[in-house]
C-alpha cells in the first residue's frame, strides 16, 4: 500500500504524478457536469411545459432553509479553499482546522437537508409515498406537481449523495492531515478533494434558484 506523498511506480517524477492527478480530477468533473446535466435537461423541459404548477410547487419548499444552506455550502467552499492555501504555505495545523470546518459546514448542510426532506414527507410531497399536492385539484395538476417533486428529490438527492462522498473524502484527508502528511511540496490530495468539493458547491449554486426561486413574487 502506498503512503500519501510517495511516487507511484508508473510515474517517472512527482510532477508527472501531480499533473496526472489534476487532469484526472478535471476530466472526472467533466463527467459529473454531464451526469447532473441530464437532470437539468429534464428539469428544463418539464418547467417550460408546466410553468405555473412548477411555480406553485416551488413556493411550497422552504426558502429560508434553502438560502441558509446556500450560505453554509458556499462557506464550506471558502474553508476548503483556505485549507488548500494553508497546505501550500506549509501551515499544517491550519490545514487540519480548515478541513474540519469544511466537514462541519457540510454536515450542517446535510442536516438541514434532512429537515427539509422531513417537512416534505409530513406534507405528503414525496412522490411514490402517499403523494398528494392539492387534494382537491385535478389528477393532472397533482401529476405535474409530482414531476416537480420527483425532480426536487432526484436532483437534491443526487447532490446529497455527492456531499456524503465528499464528507468521506474529508474524513480521510483530516486523518492524513493530522499525521502531518501535507506540506508545501506535496498537497495534491487536498487540492483534488477541493476541486470535487467546489464542483458540488457549483451544482447547488444552480439548484438553489432553479428549485427554490421559480416564482416567489
Amino acid at each position, binding site marked *: 500500500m502506498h503512503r500519501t506523498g510517495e511516487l507511484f511506480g508508473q*510515474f517517472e517524477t512527482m510532477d508527472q504524478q501531480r499533473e496526472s492527478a489534476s487532469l484526472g480530477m478535471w476530466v472526472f468533473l467533466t463527467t459529473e457536469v454531464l451526469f447532473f446535466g441530464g437532470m437539468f435537461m429534464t428539469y428544463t423541459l418539464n418547467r417550460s411545459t408546466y410553468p405555473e404548477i412548477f411555480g406553485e410547487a416551488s413556493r411550497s419548499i422552504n426558502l429560508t432553509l434553502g438560502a441558509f444552506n446556500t450560505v453554509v455550502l458556499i462557506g464550506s467552499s471558502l474553508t476548503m479553499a483556505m485549507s488548500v492555501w494553508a497546505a501550500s504555505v506549509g501551515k499544517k495545523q491550519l490545514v487540519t482546522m480548515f478541513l474540519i470546518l469544511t466537514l462541519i459546514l457540510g454536515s450542517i448542510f446535510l442536516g438541514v437537508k434532512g429537515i427539509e426532506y422531513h417537512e416534505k414527507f409530513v406534507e405528503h410531497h414525496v412522490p411514490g409515498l402517499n403523494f398528494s399536492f392539492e387534494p382537491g385539484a385535478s389528477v393532472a395538476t397533482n*401529476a405535474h406537481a409530482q414531476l416537480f417533486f420527483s*425532480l426536487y428529490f432526484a436532483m437534491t438527492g443526487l447532490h446529497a449523495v455527492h456531499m456524503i462522498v465528499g464528507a468521506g473524502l474529508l474524513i480521510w484527508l483530516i486523518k492524513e492531515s493530522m499525521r502531518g502528511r501535507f506540506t508545501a511540496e506535496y498537497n495534491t490530495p487536498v487540492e483534488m478533494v477541493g476541486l470535487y468539493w467546489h464542483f458540488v458547491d457549483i451544482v447547488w449554486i444552480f439548484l438553489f434558484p432553479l428549485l427554490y426561486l421559480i416564482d416567489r413574487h
Partner: protein
Amino acid sequence: MSTTPAARPSATPGNILPREHYLNATYGIRSWLLTTDHKRIALLYLVSVTFFFFIGGAFATMIRIHLLTPNGYLVTPETYNKLFTMHGVAMIFFFLIPSIPAVLGNFLIPLMIGAKDLAFPKINLLSWYIYLVGGSFVLYSFSTGGLDTGWTFYTPLSSVYSNSAVTPAVIGVFINGFSSILTGLNFIVTIHTMRAPGMTWFRLPLFVWAHYATSIIFILGTPVIAITLLLAGLERMFHLGFFNPALGGDPILFQHLFWFYSHPAVYIMILPAMGVISEIIPTFARKPIFGYTFIAGSSIAIAVIGFFVWAHHMFLTGESTYAALTFSLLSYLVAIPSAVKVFNWTSTLYKGSISYDTPMLYALGFIGLFLVGGLTGLFLACLGLDIHIHDTYFVVAHFHYIMVGGAVMGYVGGLHFWWPKITGRLYPEFLARIAAVTLFIGFNLTFFPQFILGYLGMPRRYHSYPPEFQVFNVMSTAGASILALGYLLPMIYLVWSMRYGQVAGRNPWPATGLEWQTDSPPLTENFDVTPEVTWEAYDFENRPDLGLDVKGAPSLAPAHGDD
C-alpha cells in the same frame, strides 16, 4: 542491411520466449485478480468480453433459427422480444463498447507511448470489476424473466408497462457505464502525461489517436445515459412520471437523452477499430500511412461531430421538421471524416508492397464492409428515404455492416496482429486466412439479404413476416451459421497457439510501433529503459533496425506460424 528472411532475427527458427515476462512474473489467482498490470487487465477483459460475445451470440442464433419460417416456431412472440433485446444489450454494452479499448487499448497504449503502465493502474482494475458487477446485474435480469424492451429501453414500455426484469438490467447497464468512464479517463490522462521523451503528439500511432478520440466520447457521453437510465429506473420503481405521458411526462425526452449518448456510442464502437486498421494497413503495405494528420484529425472530428447528430434516430417520432432537417444535415457532415479515412487507407495501399496476411485480410474486409455500412447510413440520414426504411431490416443490415463488418473485424484483425506481442507466439497462418475468408463470406450472406428485406418492407423486431420474405431470411440464417464458424475457428486456434504456436520474437511482421521494440511477451514494466523516440510514425524507410530493404526491393513475406 540484410534483406534475406533467414538473416532477419524475428523470422529465424530457434526464437525463444524471453525468460521473464508479464505472464510468468508472478503466479497464482490472486496475482491475476489483484493485478494492476495493464497487460494482465487486458487479458481479464479479453476473457470477459468473449463470454458476453457468446451470450449475445446465443441469442442471435435463436433469433435466426426462429426466423427460418414466416410464423416462427421456436419461441412465442413475447419471448422473441426478449431475444432481440438481450442480444442487443449483451453485444452493445458488454462486448462492442469495451472490446477494443479494454482489451487492445489497455494492452497497447502504454507500450505504444513508451510508458510503464497507464496513469491510474488501480482504477484500471476497478474498471474491470465494475464491468463484472454491471454484467452480473444484467445476467441476473436475463435469467429472471429476461428483458423485452429493446436495447433502447424506450419509455413508457420500459418504465411502466413491461413485465420483464427491467430494473436489474437498467442497474447493470448504469453500473457498467462507470467502467467505460474510468477507462476513458485513464486513457486521456495517460496520453497527455505519460508519453516517453520524443513521443510528440504527431508521432503517436494512429491507434492512440483513435483511442483518445474514443475516450472523449466515453467522458462526455456515458454520464448522460447513466443519468437517463437512473431516471427511468426511478420512474419504474417509484411510479414517477418523467417519461410517462399518463403522468405528464414525455417519452421523447427519454429518447433525446438516450440517443445523446447512444449515437456517439456507435463511434465508440467504430473509432478504435479504425485505429486498428490504421496500424495494419501501413504494416502490410510496407508504406507510411497516407495523410497521417488527416486521419488523426478525422478521429477527433468524428468524436465531436458525432455528438450533434443524435436525433436522426428520432425522425419518425414527431420531432420538429426544423430539428429533423438540422440533424439530417449534420449526419451527412459526420460521414465526411469517415470517408477521409477510407480514402487515406486506400491511398496507402496504392503502390504499396502488399502482403495478404490474416490481419491484412481483416483490414481489407473492414474497408469494404465499412464502406457499405457507412454509405447505407447516408440512405437512412435522408429524411424522405428514412420514412420508408426506418425500423426495417435495412437499419438492421446497416448497423450490422458497421458493427460486425467493421468493429468486430477490426477487433479480430487486431487480435491477430498483436497476438504475437500478447502471447509471444504466432497463430497458424493458413488456418487463420481460411477463417477470415469464412467470416467474410458468412457475414455478407447473413446481412446483405437484410438490406433487401428492409427495402421490401420487412419491419425489424417482428417475430413473424409475410411468406414472400422467407427466402431472404433463410439465406440470412444460412449465412449466420457460416459466420459462426468464422468466429469459432479463431477461438480454437488462438488458444491452441498459446501453447503450440511458433515463438514469434520481438517483431515478426515487422511493424514500426514502439510496442514492437519490446520482448514478446513484454516485461511487466514494458521497457528495460525508458525509450527515447527520434523517428516519425510508420517511417519504414528510415528504420534500419527493422531489417527491411524498403526502396524498390520485392516484398518480403513476414514470418508465418506454419511455414
